């Protein structure tokens, strides 16, 4: 299979599935579910095939990289504005693609609990998958933006129609927040487009060309980079989410149905991190370095803040949602620990920054696995007793021992226990942070105490104790085979990533090493421009 | 003293015209009004004929006045029919009562 066919198929197989689903009889719910599951499985295998073709040693995608054997394909789309249908994978997107298709597979398997308007749900779900995969594959800013928006709408309906009691509020909140971010991104995108002819070439939306331009000494103006970075960062920070743009998350998570929560936590939050690392950083190296301290500070604050907020929750799902805020803080820190010499602009301890970015990427994957698992665990109990009040659980260890065992494993992964996935990402990020800023590193490290606090306290309230205190005690039946399979799959990957992190780090490291080098070159070139720019300003 | 000239005809026409107008304005009887109309028309006819005679209009004045006479006859027929109908409906031919088209 040619790369373009393979990549296009990955993106549009779910759409095709959604289209075919439309012809199903409305009452054939079981058949539709099985069909949709088959589509997600097919997509997962296609990404695996892509993984087979993928060569990690080729490094970061670069302009003209297809000649170097990188997986890039280009077709003209709207030639008038130089918009291209450009797809590609490297060490940044490959792991996330695998994560996405895998999480979708699990979430689809968890969708048997959806009883209402199954057809519409499945169609929207598959469209959502198309959007997510498209975001991770597209290399043209315009295409990226289109997929980004494609993702938004199904999500809005999935929360708004299949959600809990306050679904309208949550859906609108999610929509408004995300749309605000999209608008900022759109502005930045147009800024880049209209400045992309600075070297006398045509204007482009091509991310690789733009990155090349940003690296070039006369490419993009430093001030433009700063402005654009702020716009892009806010846009992506909303998705991440980082304090103070995070309040859509608890509401959306609480109201969304379980599978959608899994997708939200498992994949959608990663888009923020991916956007920063794929777009914001390479397109504005100067802006990124300029804002690095703020990023690390926001990350550190999010960790502590999210952990504290999680501790105070009585809603099980809200607690998990806030834990996401806390965990994604590490992603932000890891990416931004870009220490430079204040006067010369030279990189200090570049390997630590590389480690930080690797840690951040790994943390995204780990969080994708563990938080999707945690939401699933909450969903299992919610399906049975229809409430999530932490103070009205207890004693589940006796009633549902297997469930408790799997849940404990997944929650410990979230807690950052060594041997499970959460540990590697967190610890690598924290270790790399001291090189950048001692105080913020210490603050970030303090998260380990709070995380242990709220997770163990939650476990104590839900699973331990003599008896179940809430309503519907008769409904506490053991997990069924499908649920066991999902939880075991999550736990398996949590252990695999925790014990052998090189399976992912090995894929990412060459790419990220290239990325740090490119960024540093871009920064130094832009930095050289700065005195010139100020002179011009003073002359005026 | 000259013979009867244009001015005398015009004077007669004017008298007829004014008499007709006054008749139209003062008579409440529809027949009277019609008679006023006839007077006005004939006043005009006098003028046409006079101008035809004293100026170089030729036969044009006479022809127009013939038209007017024919039209007046037709008009009188229609008007009388209206008056008759009006009377049938309202048992009067007082034009002041005929204000159905009032704005």
């Amino acid at each position: 299979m040619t790369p373009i066919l393979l990549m296009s198929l990955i993106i549009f197989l779910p759409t095709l599935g959604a289209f075919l689903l439309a012809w199903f009889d409305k009452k054939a719910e079981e058949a539709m579910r099985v069909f949709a599951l088959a589509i997600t499985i097919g997509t997962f295998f296609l990404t695996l095939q892509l993984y087979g073709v993928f060569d990690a040693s080729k490094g970061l995608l670069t302009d003209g990289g297809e000649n170097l054997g990188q997986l890039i394909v280009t077709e003209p789309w709207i030639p008038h504005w130089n918009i291209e249908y450009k797809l590609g994978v490297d060490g940044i997107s490959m792991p996330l693609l695998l994560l996405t298709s895998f999480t979708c597979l699990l979430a689809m398997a968890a969708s048997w609990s959806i009883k209402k308007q199954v057809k519409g749900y499945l169609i929207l779900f598959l469209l959502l998958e198309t959007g997510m995969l498209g975001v991770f594959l597209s290399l043209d800013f315009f295409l990226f933006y289109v997929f980004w928006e494609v993702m938004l709408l199904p999500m809005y309906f999935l929360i708004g129609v299949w959600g809990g009691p306050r679904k309208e509020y949550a859906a609108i909140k999610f929509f408004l927040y995300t749309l605000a971010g999209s608008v900022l991104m759109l502005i930045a995108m147009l800024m880049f487009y209209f400045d992309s002819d600075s070297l006398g070439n045509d204007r482009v939306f091509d991310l690789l060309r733009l990155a090349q331009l940003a690296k070039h000494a006369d490419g993009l103006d430093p001030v433009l980079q700063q402005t654009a970075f702020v716009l892009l960062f806010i846009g992506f920070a909303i998705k991440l989410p980082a304090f103070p743009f995070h309040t859509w998350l608890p509401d959306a998570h609480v109201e969304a149905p379980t599978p959608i929560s899994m997708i939200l936590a498992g994949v959608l939050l990663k888009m923020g991190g991916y956007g920063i690392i794929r777009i914001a950083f390479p397109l504005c190296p100067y802006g990124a370095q300029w804002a690095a301290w703020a990023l690390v500070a926001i990350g550190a604050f999010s960790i502590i803040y999210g952990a504290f907020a999680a501790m105070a929750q009585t809603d099980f799902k809200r607690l998990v949602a806030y834990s996401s805020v806390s965990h994604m803080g590490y992603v932000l820190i890891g990416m931004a620990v870009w220490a430079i010499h204040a006067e010369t602009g030279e990189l200090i301890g570049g390997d630590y920054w590389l480690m930080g970015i690797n840690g951040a990427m790994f943390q995204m994957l780990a969080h994708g696995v563990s938080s999707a698992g945690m939401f699933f665990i909450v969903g299992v109990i919610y399906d049975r007793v229809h409430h999530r009040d932490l103070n009205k659980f207890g004693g589940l260890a006796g009633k549902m021992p297997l469930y408790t065992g799997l849940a404990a494993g997944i929650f410990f992964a979230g807690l950052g226990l060594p041997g499970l996935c959460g540990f590697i990402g967190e610890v690598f990020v924290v270790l790399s942070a001291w090189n950048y800023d001692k105080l913020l590193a210490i603050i970030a490290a303090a998260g380990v105490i709070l995380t242990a606090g709220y997770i163990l306290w939650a476990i104590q309230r839900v699973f331990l104790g003599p008896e179940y205190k809430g309503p519907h005690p008769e409904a506490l039946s053991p997990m069924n085979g499908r649920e066991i399979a999902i939880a075991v799959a999550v736990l398996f990957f949590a252990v695999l990533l925790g014990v052998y992190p090189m399976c992912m780090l090995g894929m990412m490291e060459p790419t990220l090493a290239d990325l740090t080098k490119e960024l540093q070159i871009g920064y130094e070139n832009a930095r050289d421009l700065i005195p010139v720019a100020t002179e011009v300003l003073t002359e005026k | 003293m000259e013979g009867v000239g244009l001015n005398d005809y015009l004077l007669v026409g004017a008298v007829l015209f004014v008499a007709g107008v006054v008749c139209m304005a003062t008579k409440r009887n529809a027949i009277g009004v019609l008679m006023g109309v006839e007077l006005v028309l004939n006043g005009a006819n006098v003028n046409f004929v006079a101008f035809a005679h004293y100026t170089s209009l030729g036969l044009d004045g006479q022809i127009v006045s013939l038209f007017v006479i024919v039209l007046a006859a037709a008009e009188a027929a229609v008007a009388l029919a209206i008056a008759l109908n009006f009377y049938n409906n309202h048992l009067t031919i007082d034009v002041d009562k005929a204000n159905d088209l009032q704005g």
Partner: protein
Amino acid sequence: MSFETLTQEIDCTRETLKWLLTVAWLLPLFGFVVEVFGGYWGDRKCKYASYFAVFCIASGFICSSAAMIVWQDKTEWGERSAASSGHGAVAHAAAEHTEAVGNHEYQMPTSFTGSFYSLGKFGDLEVSLDYYIDSLTLVMFVMVTLIATCIHLFAIGYMRDELTDDYVDHQVHTSDGGHFHRPGRFYRFFSYMSLFSFSMLGLVLAGNIFQVFIFWELVGICSYLLIGFYVERKSASTAANKAFIMNRVGDFGFLIGLMVLWTYFGTFSFVTVDQTGQSDGGLFYMVRGHDGELQVDEEANAVTLHTNSEVPQQIPYYLLVVAGLGIFAGCIGKSAQFPLQTWLPDAMEGPTPVSALVHSATMVAAGVYLAGRFFPMFTPEVLLTIAYVGCITLFLAATIAVVATDIKRVLAYSTISQLGYMMLGIGVFGWGAGLFHLITHAFFKSLMFLASGSVIVGCHHEQEMPKMGGLWRKMPVTAFTMLIGVIAISGLAIPGSQLLFGEILAFSGFHSKDAIVASAMTFVSVNPVHFLLYIVPLVTAGITAFYMFRLWFYTFVGEPRDKEIHDHAQESPWIMILPLIVLSVFAAGVAVGGESGQLFKLLGDSEPIGVAAGTTDAGMIGLNLPGHAAIHQHHASAGVQALLVAFAGAVIAFLFYGARVVDPAEIKRNLGGLHNFLVEKWRFDELYDVMFVRPVHVIAAGCTWFDRTIIDGVLHGTVKIAIWMSGWHRRFDEGIVDGLVNLVGNSTFAFGRSLRVFQTGQLRQYIMFIAVGVLTLFVLLFIAFPK
């Protein structure tokens, strides 16, 4: 021996040791997996899980012993310690040592390092799973596996009432007033125990500090699982949480230490050893080099590191202190030192075999082990901190132990106190003494815990000592083995026996504690300012003897206090007695020969370079650190003093509780305030509750409030403003834009309407209008165009 054959031999030895220890390490993990799955789907009444666990850990013991034999056989391990601890010639020890290295250029090293696999590689930085094998590793392996095997065996008997489908937990009440019923969890207990052993062994085998941290956390989670084994009991789950979170507080410090080390050293490995047995990298080498001295750059106030690179690498001195203190903070948490000691007594909620394991060979031992392992990285300032923390802890715990009445709690506090001794030993430069005590303590403390477990089972789960007494008639073996443990921990010996036998006849505790007291005494003699570091442990030695004998007299001697319990008490079955006997043999004899015995020599081989010689005026605070020779001089007098104090304690205990000539209740009444203060554990729990737990909850609530009120408030406010604005929008649309259009329409309409008045329907009027109009037009025409 030629270079090639030596290299081959080293490789061969390293691989042998590596695989033996790896098997010993991984077998319990395998056991865990098998037991946890097999047990879940298996029969609740079947004992296979325990047999499998015992098989795994016992095989581990055999492998470790084999490794120990291989190591002893292949290496010339005695040479270095013999060379460096020679009496009188200590000042030249370092010189001699280097000379020795020079002479035996091709010498078999006594430590072996290598790597399992890499966790992540970033440029020059690499995080990997390594192993580091030296005599300390081996001693710990043998000790841990031996004690764990004994405890596993004991637990087969102790946990036998879990072998049922319907276990009744008498301590848990359901809402309908009955007792709690559940299936037995025999298998699960053993699977946790296996995981625990695996974690501890991994920690000991670890070749870098990061790997230590990994297993450090795993040990923590295992203790969480085991302390909270009775998940239904609120007290148990709370204690488990407390243990884990307290440990995490320490780990926070640990993490800071790791960050500093990682940033300034770029490596985590302790030491890497090259083919010729010379260290050529790793943290210890970078800090200490080959001679054990810190290279302090006075001007930059930094320590210059030994590296092979051209560019000199430095670490600020204060950061080296921070790193040391950070790592030690981890040790504080794990070894329950002041101020994080409060979790350990609560950890008694777990089944007794767990307490035995936690308190002797694993978990708490890990802290001391790490402090010993990481010793080369500690600056004098850190050592002094360690010494004082140990000193405070040992006294504090001992005072609480005096008033505790729960048999397990007395032992728990004695553990904390003894750990304090070990820390003190390490802190006062008595490296060997501290670790020596770690090993001996592991044996006698596990012995005593198992004995207390035997008592508890015998008394049908009664733990309060005031309800016991006179039990030695009922359970003689338990009483006897317990007595061995008590004598060992108290540090009693037969005075004057060295005149007859050439050496003092005493159980293990005497030798190790004697070593610590001697180290402390020497330390104080060269640093008189820190006199408390000698006085407090000496006094506490007496207190230790007092409360331990109090425990024994209370439990086993005199008239039974509770007739019913006494009548039903019985000796435990052989499977519980056997481990007691084995352990009592080791508790008595493991330290035979004291500091010239095998064990101490073995440990001495791993002693960091430079400890033997000692230094003067070290660090920024100018501390004098005594070497072996100095300590040896004070040995005899320290031993006599410690022995006297211990005897005094034992005699007082006998008077109070054995002979009962003094009434303890009388004293309790007279010192009521103090007694309460001690019973309430110096009120640390209340203090922490007020200082940390409540503020955390307040902050947490504050964060939620902030989210809900401020951020969402801003959001909702924005939405409201938007709605309000759109209201005005609507008004503008409706008022201005629509108004204009309507105005045009309306005015046209109104104008038309105003014309209506002329449409009177009066025919005659119309004619008047026409006439007047025409006239007017004419008049106007004439005015406008007058000819």
